[in-house]
């Protein structure tokens, strides 16, 4: 039983330690935490349910714009803004998913990219509302829970994002063990068998996609509130692709993989880009290659792999 609480405790400790170790890098740490939320949403959609997507940024961007506009025009309360962002992400996922979840494989991937591109183009054209290519400015979120004001060093932002991330993580951890979570893993393993035991795979996948969209929307809302700016980049293909690489790096379907992958990717990116602004991508590429070859199940699988290795058992890839 005690072992069960060890990983979440370690995660919390690492987050607190990071705050004290890198007090001048809070903005960067906060970006990592927000990215973790996005990658967690992808883990629900891709890692649990096996829905292949390269367009998770669509819901992220929708959440960011929704939270930004909500703060400017309706109410500056950050938590209400999170709800607005989550709703926007979920609604976009439900609407696009109603069509997308009928497809699979490459078709699905292409369509998810298309949805994100369409969203970016709409945001670009609707200059009067979104600020177009200049980005959405003038977001002034109020105090968090009416107590903590956002400061320019980013102390509030960091703890706020961290709290939201841990909450999302906890919800997904509960979801992963639930009958719904088990059914998503079932769909991932064999959609045909799920139909044969009386499940509408389409509806179950749509539910997962919508939920994932809501969480991506929360990540977007966090960005909007903490950076107080939303740009068209929130919809970008590279964001979706990087989130996917982070998830694969860490390992899909196990939540901690999403956390580890994001932290490692962004830390390596940060250090490599600072040391060599031109060739940092090479380092990332080598890292991904190494993981795919030696730890195909992701970095979060390392302890299990080592255990198998020491037992002399064969390395089980998947």
């Amino acid at each position, binding site marked *: 039983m005690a072992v069960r609480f060890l990983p979440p405790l370690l995660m919390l400790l690492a987050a607190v330690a990071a705050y004290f170790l890198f007090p001048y890098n809070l903005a960067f740490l906060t970006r990592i935490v927000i990215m973790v939320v996005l990658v967690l949403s992808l883990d629900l959609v891709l890692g649990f349910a096996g829905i292949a997507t390269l367009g998770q940024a669509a819901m992220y961007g929708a959440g960011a714009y929704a939270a930004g506009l909500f703060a400017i025009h309706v109410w500056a309360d950050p938590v209400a803004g999170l709800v607005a962002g989550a709703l926007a992400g979920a609604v976009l996922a439900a609407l696009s998913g109603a069509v997308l979840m009928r497809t699979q494989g490459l078709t699905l991937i292409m369509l998810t990219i298309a949805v994100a591109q369409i969203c970016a183009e709409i945001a670009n054209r609707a200059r009067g509302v979104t600020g177009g290519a200049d980005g959405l400015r003038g977001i002034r979120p109020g105090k968090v829970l009416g107590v903590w004001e956002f400061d320019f060093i980013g102390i509030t932002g960091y703890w706020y994002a961290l709290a939201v991330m841990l909450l999302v993580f906890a919800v997904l951890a509960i979801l992963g063990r639930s*009958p719904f979570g088990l059914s998503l893993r079932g769909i991932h*393993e064999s959609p045909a068998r799920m139909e044969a035991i009386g499940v509408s795979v389409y509806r179950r996948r749509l539910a997962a996609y919508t939920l994932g969209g809501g969480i991506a929307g929360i990540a977007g809302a966090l960005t909007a509130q903490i950076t107080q700016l939303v740009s068209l980049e929130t919809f970008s293909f590279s964001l979706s692709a990087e989130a996917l690489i982070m998830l694969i790096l860490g390992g899909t379907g196990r939540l901690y993989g999403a956390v580890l992958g994001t932290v490692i990717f962004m830390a390596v990116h940060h250090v490599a880009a600072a040391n060599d602004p031109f060739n940092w991508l090479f380092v990332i590429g080598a890292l991904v290659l190494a993981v795919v070859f030696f730890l195909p199940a992701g970095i979060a699988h390392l302890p299990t792999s080592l255990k198998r290795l020491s037992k002399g058992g064969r390395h089980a890839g998947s």
Partner: protein
Amino acid sequence: MQGLEVRGLSKRFGGLVVSENIDFDLPPGARKALIGPNGAGKSTFANLVTGILSPSGGTIRFDGQDVAGLNEAQRVKRGIAKTFQITTLFPRLTVRENLRLPVLEREGQGTRMFRRASGNAEIEAEVTALIDQFDLGPLADRPVLDLAYGQQRLVEMALSLALKPRLLILDEPAAGVPSSETHLIIEAIERLPDDLAVLVIEHDMDLVFRVARSIVVLVQGRILTEGTPEEIANNAQVRELYLGGAHG
């Protein structure tokens, strides 16, 4: 009328007739086998009954109700289940999880998000009973992909039985199973509930003659004849066409 009643069932793929004017009854507790050469339309017939394919003509009634318009998932809810000819399990889930899934779905709990999948004592008891019924106890917490093929076929059967069907179609339950393990499959079929209607589609004649009380012979989409195992074994037409005298 209880059980399955099929009348004048036909299925065409374009100009190709794969099922033609099939009449077929399967009352509760029946143990029927469907045999016939490759391409006779056995699997097509099974897929028509379970709703994977829709018929070109004829009626399918189950417990007095027309089910021809229902899809696969809806027919499962009515009590029609089928095992897969090619083992179709959840390979990376454990045996227990594989069996938990259909029980949860049958009980309508599959969309619950905020309780543990393993948290319902009644469901767990039922899963354990299924594991015991198929002698899978020592393997219960192993991923299915670690199991031998014969054992996987047992999980395949247990998975369908977990839906508490009233009609169970076993599509080549012993396909790919080494002959040394066929007896496991036969024993499992013999232990199925007495009131369950069972239709076995199978090439392995030992298995068919062991478990079936009635055999239907399908040739080129039509029913050639129906009878007890003894009648079928002595039917000259069947022996010539299909058995080649091997079981005379």
